[in-house]
């Protein structure tokens, strides 16, 4: 399926882009992360959480096709 992925803060510095569309097989977040780690090799040094459809999810969560976001540590306020 085609998934829209958004990158923020220092993660966007690693990916050199703020978003992209990726064609991935069905599976869970962990599987998607494997794809991203092989695409961006400095990503594994970085601390981030993952949101799917604007909710934080775990590695075991199944991909739904909704928007994914890689969120570095929050710094609001």
């Amino acid at each position: 399926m085609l998934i829209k992925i958004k990158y923020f803060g220092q993660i966007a510095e690693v990916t050199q882009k703020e978003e992209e569309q990726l064609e991935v097989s069905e599976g869970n977040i962990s599987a998607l992360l494997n794809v991203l780690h092989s695409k961006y090799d400095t990503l594994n040094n970085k601390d981030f959480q993952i949101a799917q459809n604007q909710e934080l999810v775990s590695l075991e969560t199944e991909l739904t096709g909704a928007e994914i976001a890689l969120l570095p540590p929050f710094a609001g306020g």
Partner: protein
Amino acid sequence: MKDKKPMKSVFKEGAITSEFIGNSIYKHQTKTSIGAHNIFLGQVRADEIDGKTVSAIEYTAYEDMANQKFHEIRESSFEKFDLTCMHIYHSLGTVKAGEICLFVFVSSPRRKVVFEALEYIVDAIKADVPVFGKEIFEDESHQWKVNS
């Protein structure tokens, strides 16, 4: 009297000015059931890190999710606390050292309520809202801010 609009954006481009805050206080003077206001302001610190001084923070956000989180914080605050009003504003873009990047304003008939509510809200914003801050040093290098 409950001022409970759904899902307005809390983001403002650039710093939040003292005039804006003063004006916001002024607007509450028609609400005569209010006895206590409590206001939190986050101000950008000129921190010195390894000999370099922060001159500004550049804020970005995952805006849709952030507005959703702000909305949830708002809903749960009105549920938990007897608030008359509640307003949150957060900057996006560049905010210089000394300028204000976060303005949280709660009002209630009674003071105990506003103290509890304000701390709850500010803690929730820091923990749950996807806002990112790039600390820009005077030499134009940068590092990424992390809430502690």
